[in-house]
């Protein structure tokens, strides 16, 4: 990767045409052909082009072309402040907690975190109005429909589970089914609607879900 810090002016032509007058900039040329131009302030690049690109550099004029789209970035370098190349290795992948499928898998193993004694009968039960996250049974034998949200549950989540219940109750065997929305947080409007529609709101303790005791044990 090359990091060029330089006073330069920049022209771009492609989706639109832009011209950036002379100023001090950090230009990053990444190994996959991506190019980013940063100014001294702000986190967003002033200009960028995703790779692969083809680059030529002649007498302080850097031309970067993206063949796929025909976009061109022209950088006229007036003064080089620094110009360094680095062989960087980074194989790590950003880990995010709370992805919905992961939440589902963890909840399937620990349904007591939704309700003590709850038994999961089916995950992703398909219905004509979409798949319901969990079809479950409570300790009294009643069917429970569970919609899981990984972040704040809003009105749409309540409406979603109501639709599932209306659909599933067409089958007499599922009459009297309970509907639950499970989320770490609820919007006030969602709680109000849930109350009116007889939907239960279960606040998910994400920390408990991810706590080591709730995972299957591992070898190391």
């Amino acid at each position, binding site marked *: 990767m090359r990091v060029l810090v330089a006073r330069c002016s920049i022209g771009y032509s492609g989706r639109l045409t832009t011209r950036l007058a002379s100023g001090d900039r950090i230009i990053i040329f990444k190994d996959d052909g991506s190019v980013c131009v940063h100014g001294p302030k702000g986190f967003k690049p002033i200009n960028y082009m995703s790779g*692969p690109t*083809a680059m030529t550099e002649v007498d302080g004029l850097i031309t970067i072309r993206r063949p*796929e789209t025909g976009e061109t970035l022209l950088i006229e370098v007036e003064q080089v402040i620094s110009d360094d190349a680095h062989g960087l290795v980074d*194989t790590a*992948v950003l*880990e995010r907690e709370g992805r919905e499928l992961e939440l589902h898998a963890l909840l399937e193993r620990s349904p007591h975190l939704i309700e003590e004694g709850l038994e999961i009968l089916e995950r992703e039960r398909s219905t004509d109005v979409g798949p319901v996250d969990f079809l479950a049974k409570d300790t009294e034998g009643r069917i429970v429909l569970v919609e899981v949200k990984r972040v704040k549950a809003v009105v749409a989540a309540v409406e979603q589970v109501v639709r599932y219940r209306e659909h599933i109750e067409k089958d007499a065997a599922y009459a009297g089914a309970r509907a639950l929305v499970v989320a770490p947080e609820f919007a006030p409007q969602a709680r109000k609607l849930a109350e009116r529609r007889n939907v239960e709101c279960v606040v998910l303790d994400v920390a408990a879900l991810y706590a080591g005791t709730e995972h*299957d044990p591992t070898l190391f």
Partner: protein
Amino acid sequence: MKIRCNREHLADRLAQAARAASTRANLQSAAHVRLTAESSEAPVELAATDLEMTLRVPLTADVEEPGSVLLPAKIAPELIRALNGETVELSAQDDGRVLVSAGSSSYTLYGLPVDEFPQLPEIDHEQVFETDSAVFADVVGRVKRAASRDESRPVLTGALVRFESDRITMAATDSYRLAVAEAPLSKAPPESIEAIIPVKALEEVVRLAGSDGKPLSVAIGEGLVTFGIDGIWLSVRRIEGQFPNFTALKPDGVEQSATIAKDELLEVVRRVGIVVRQNTPVRVELAPGQLSLQARTADVAEGAESIPVAATGTETIEIGFNHEFLRDGIESVPGDEVKLSLISSLRPALLESVDGAFWYVIMPIRI
């Protein structure tokens, strides 16, 4: 560039090379196969890469004009296979397009300029040693299923491959199970050497090796591992990082164990698996005279099976396993018999071949 060659041969070789081409939309040039015809004397080379794995495949062709072109990896093999005629001619046009003619057919492939193709890693031929492809393929087949598919832990998506003077050892783990296979080698490197190699690349090597026992060339370099078979070279980036100390994970202090006919055990495990859903455990009970398996999926089905066994201990141990992991382990054991060893319902269990050359540790799940 202008070449002429057997159409079937080109289609086969293009399809082989294209397996390394990138499928990522943001890397358009790597979604191509580079065809390089240097001279009428040297073989033509087809090369493709997804920047992790690179394949170089030789092609027998008559070179009329040397040069290089990029051919779209997705459609070029399919198109050339579908053409009529025994011979096909490829010729580069001035604008980088490639004219493909065979019989009465004429097609133009819109390749990219060849200078946009990623730079390929160099093969260090000085480090190359030869080994047994059949042994290598067998060992890969025994451990590959235990590797992780979770890209967030790259080390576990590879297998640790260790060459010693007289043997190969391979280990893979996804942290829930660990598979270790050892085999003697008639050909090995002069010094012990090891690397963590992506399982996807190992599977590709096995596919290239086929079943006709051709020698396998291997070069383990600083950041790159290269395999060569029958003129085809596959290079792959080594996975950097520390592989778990797998020998320390082999359970000791076994309380109960039994050696069971593999086919019989597998049949029972597969059958009981029919009533298992992904996250419901198979209950295994090993008693002095009997091995029992049970599975239940709420409101769907349940089942139980038993096999008479001569267990070595006096204890009865009940333990739960992920069905898929249990089945994978049994299927991977070579030979006709499987030795199952248990310590307790909470400690890892061991499945191994009678000769100890393969062992598979599996963590229990709560029942």
